[in-house]
């Protein structure tokens, strides 16, 4: 057993009258790649806000690497839907923000970011401004920034949803490759079923509110993966099932 990177223990949460989570428990093992799949407004982003510490559960607890923190800020790396790069900072300066906040000396932080730029396909971009980069490259900077903040639990909130179709496919493969090298724990929010199938070890499906449990869907193909692995009969059936579910949910 590898131990839990993240654990929800009987968490209840709601905004005002509306109860979103009710007594929800689940675990994510270290090094797992999990996709969280759900329709719009199903509470995916709320889960992330709870994990990052932007929201506090009404009841229950959230443990990261087995520890309950009074304040979870800085414990996980969060990659938002929009890249949210600061336009007045260069790529290097954007990448080093989490290190600055942690109190690392600027020189050291710059050296750390520079050593990562090539791995993230950003060689030679350190001194450029975000507006000079394409959408895909900006998302890589955002990912780099997320990996530098907190422990190696990464929360990715529909990071590729704003990219064009080709760039999206390319970025999925790139992300998978990065993950296979680093084996960080990844929670990946998406509403794209094939994206979830291609990337994850298992999919957690959000049902109707209030959410009392997450439906666990293990992905029956191994790694490393190729896109054609999605074309096996088993995977196509799984995809059909998941799509059918959301179709029903949408009614």
């Amino acid at each position, binding site marked *: 057993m590898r131990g839990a990177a993240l654990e929800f223990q009987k968490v209840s949460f709601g905004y005002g009258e509306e109860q979103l989570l009710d007594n929800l428990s689940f675990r994510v093992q270290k090094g797992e790649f999990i996709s969280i799949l759900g329709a719009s407004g199903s509470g995916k982003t709320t889960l992330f806000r709870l994990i*990052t*510490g*932007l929201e506090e559960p009404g009841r229950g607890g959230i443990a990261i690497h087995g520890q309950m923190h009074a304040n979870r*800020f*800085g*414990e*996980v790396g*969060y990659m*938002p839907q*929009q890249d*949210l790069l*600061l*336009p*007045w*900072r260069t790529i290097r300066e954007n990448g080093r*923000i*989490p290190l*600055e*906040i*942690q109190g690392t000396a600027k020189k050291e932080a710059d050296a750390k970011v520079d050593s990562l730029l090539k791995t993230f396909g950003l060689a030679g971009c350190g001194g450029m*401004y975000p*507006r*000079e980069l394409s959408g895909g490259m900006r998302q890589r900077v955002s990912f780099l920034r997320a990996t530098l*903040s*907190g422990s190696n639990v990464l929360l990715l909130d529909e990071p590729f949803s704003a990219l064009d179709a080709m760039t999206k496919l390319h970025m999925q493969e790139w992300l998978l490759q990065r993950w296979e090298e680093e084996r960080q724990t990844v929670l990946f929010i998406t509403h794209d079923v094939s994206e979830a199938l291609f990337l994850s070890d298992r999919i957690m499906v959000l049902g109707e509110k209030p959410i009392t449990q997450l439906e666990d869907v293990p992905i029956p193909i191994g790694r490393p993966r190729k896109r054609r692995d999605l074309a096996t009969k088993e995977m196509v059936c799984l995809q059909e099932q998941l799509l059918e579910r959301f179709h029903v949910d949408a009614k």
Partner: protein
Amino acid sequence: MMTYKDYGYALVVVLFLGVGWEISAQIVNKPFILPSPSGIAMKVWELRSLLILEHLPPTLTVILISLFLSTIFGVGLAIMMYLYKTVEKALYPLMITSQTIPIIALAPIFVLWFGYSLWSKAAVAVLFTFFPITVNTFDGLRTSRKESRELLLTMGATQKDIFFKLDVPSALPQFFSGLKVAVPLSVIGAAIGEWLGAQAGLGYFSRRMMTQFDGAGIFAPIVILSLVGIVIFSIVVWMEKRILIWRKEI
């Protein structure tokens, strides 16, 4: 970026107006009422050492002091209003009201308070200039995005981190817009301050010439005032371009 071509159009208009003015002035031929541009130019040249060595320094001092004070005061006030909702609620309406008062009418009060010193003129100029700086900086601070703030929070940022890494840089472009509005206002403020009572200064000189019915003599210091405004404005634009280099078009 403005190129020489863009300035070219403005230059044509200025030339056109100048020639029109020159011709009308020649026709009217009453230089104490309508001095000609050439007459004004000659007057500036004639009075150059008097204007630049004697009357420019006190006026320039008032302009620079008032810009400095209203930057400190305006930015400080904007930050306080941004950080503390109560301060905003208490002071924002008051600030707007301060701008509905005809400042020219208020100026004699400052003379009562500060005498004919530099400070009575600076007070008038500050009353003109602090408003655009405060309002723009305040609005600039409010443009920082909630999403970015939350992202920094998830990284463990303190309020101080967020203020300096997000709020301040977000506000800079707006602050410079405010400062650019404030520069010409500071020139006006200084001139008006001097009208009310001074022993030297370009505004004072202009007014003195009025009592002597010297039309060109009224305009000569105004030309210098206008040049001062243009030079300071250009310096602010230059600073803005250097500091906000990230905004430059590719």
